């Protein structure tokens, strides 16, 4: 097949003297649904944050849709990306945050229409149509005119997903989308994500602790440890027959309570 949707090429990322990512090589194909699992501090979220351009990289290169993300070509050479290039690249990506990060001063509808209108230049009517469609998808049509703090955590996260989708990204990044939710609200959010995973063209990259869910919707699962991919394979391989000792230990620890 063609160029992968996402490619990390020997990526290094350090905060001060702490190396979060070490020489990371990692690919996600177009339309692929990949889940990253691993212990906290293993650099899982950093991968997503680098893709959303919330963190830069210290070394190596990242490609999205074949184009370098943190670099651009100038006079035949790769130079650090300008803000304009980053803005261009961001149009392909959408992100769902662990703590939702909705805009608290905007109604649900406005959360969904604001960026399409001012960033993509959609008309008011177009943006509203698009938003209403998405609200129906996440089952929140009747909450369109409420403010985020009038919604439950699960509802807020569904708005978060709809808001990201409103920009029509090719890649959706989910950063522990259910970790901040009360247990009884996790299901409604996972249902929405499950629905999305049936979209053929949408590439999905998710960091989660919901192992059963990861097993169910992923094409591929990557086990991260110490800033590297320790093991990668189909859900059956990783959950059913892990090869690496670290993977076994981790899965044993997290599945204990399941």
């Amino acid at each position: 097949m063609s160029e992968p949707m996402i490619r990390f090429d020997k990526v290094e990322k350090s905060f001060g003297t702490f190396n979060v990512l070490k020489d990371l090589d990692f690919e996600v194909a177009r339309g692929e649904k990949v889940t990253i699992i691993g212990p906290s501090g293993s650099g899982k979220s950093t991968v997503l944050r680098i893709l959303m351009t919330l963190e830069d990289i210290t070394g190596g290169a990242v490609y999205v849709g074949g184009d370098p993300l943190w670099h651009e070509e100038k006079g035949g050479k790769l130079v650090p990306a300008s803000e304009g290039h980053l803005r261009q690249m961001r149009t392909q990506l959408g992100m769902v945050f662990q703590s939702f990060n909705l805009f608290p001063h905007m109604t649900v509808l406005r959360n969904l229409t604001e960026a399409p209108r001012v960033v993509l230049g959609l008309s008011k009517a177009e943006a509203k149509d698009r938003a209403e469609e998405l609200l129906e998808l996440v089952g929140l049509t009747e909450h369109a005119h409420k403010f985020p703090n009038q919604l439950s955590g699960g509802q807020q996260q569904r708005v978060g997903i709809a808001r990201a989708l409103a920009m029509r990204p090719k890649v959706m990044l989910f950063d522990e989308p259910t970790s901040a939710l009360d247990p009884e609200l996790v299901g409604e959010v996972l249902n929405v994500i499950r629905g999305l995973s049936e979209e053929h063209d949408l590439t999905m990259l998710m960091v989660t602790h919901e192992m059963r869910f990861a097993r169910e919707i992923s094409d591929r699962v990557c086990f991260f440890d110490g800033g590297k991919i320790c093991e990668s394979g189909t859900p059956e391989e990783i959950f059913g027959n892990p090869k690496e000792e670290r993977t076994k230990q981790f899965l044993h620890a997290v599945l204990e309570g399941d």
Partner: protein
Amino acid sequence: MVSWTDYLVPLSQGAWVTVQLTFWSTILGAILSFAGGIGKLSPIRPVRWLSVTYVEVFRGTSLLVQLFWLYFALPVAGDAIGVNLRLPPVTAGVLALSLNIGAYGAEVVRGAIQSVSKAQYEAAKAMNFTPRQTLWRVALPQAIPEMMPSFSNLAVQNLKDTALASLISLGDLAFKAEQLRNYYQDSTTVYTIVLFMYFGMALVLSVLMRLLERNVGRWRGARR
């Protein structure tokens, strides 16, 4: 024999001037607050320096010094370069009051913008807003309710400060009071009335500011 009611007409005229002075200098001061506060956070260095200098100079010196400088010294500077900078008392008064209150307000605006959570800036980036759109559409709407209690205090401060404009012969409440005292030599009555008039205006201003505060922060009050 004069009765205290005889003072009310001239004092009301003065109070009306005080109200107008307060109104215009608070509006202009608010604009300067935003310009200075946003300027202090600007990535453009000269803008940042200019804002920092403005805030430091006007917070570091006395309002009355600033007022006298604008009213007495500026015309001299104007003469030196051949420009007429003789400001009418109203202009000098409004300008000094708003420049002064704006410098304090700039610190409020800067603080409130900086108190908007990092998560909001990240969400804005993920939605691909430009820095400018992020400021106007995400950061400021959340920062403004945060500023309101301080702005209320500054508005009352500004109302009190307008009394200083009487010293450049602006006919405000404090000026009328001084005139009446001179004429009738009845300081106790005149100043008691005047103090209560200022107090009343301050209370009304506080209520107005509280209404404004509730209005800009409506989304915060919304609950399930």
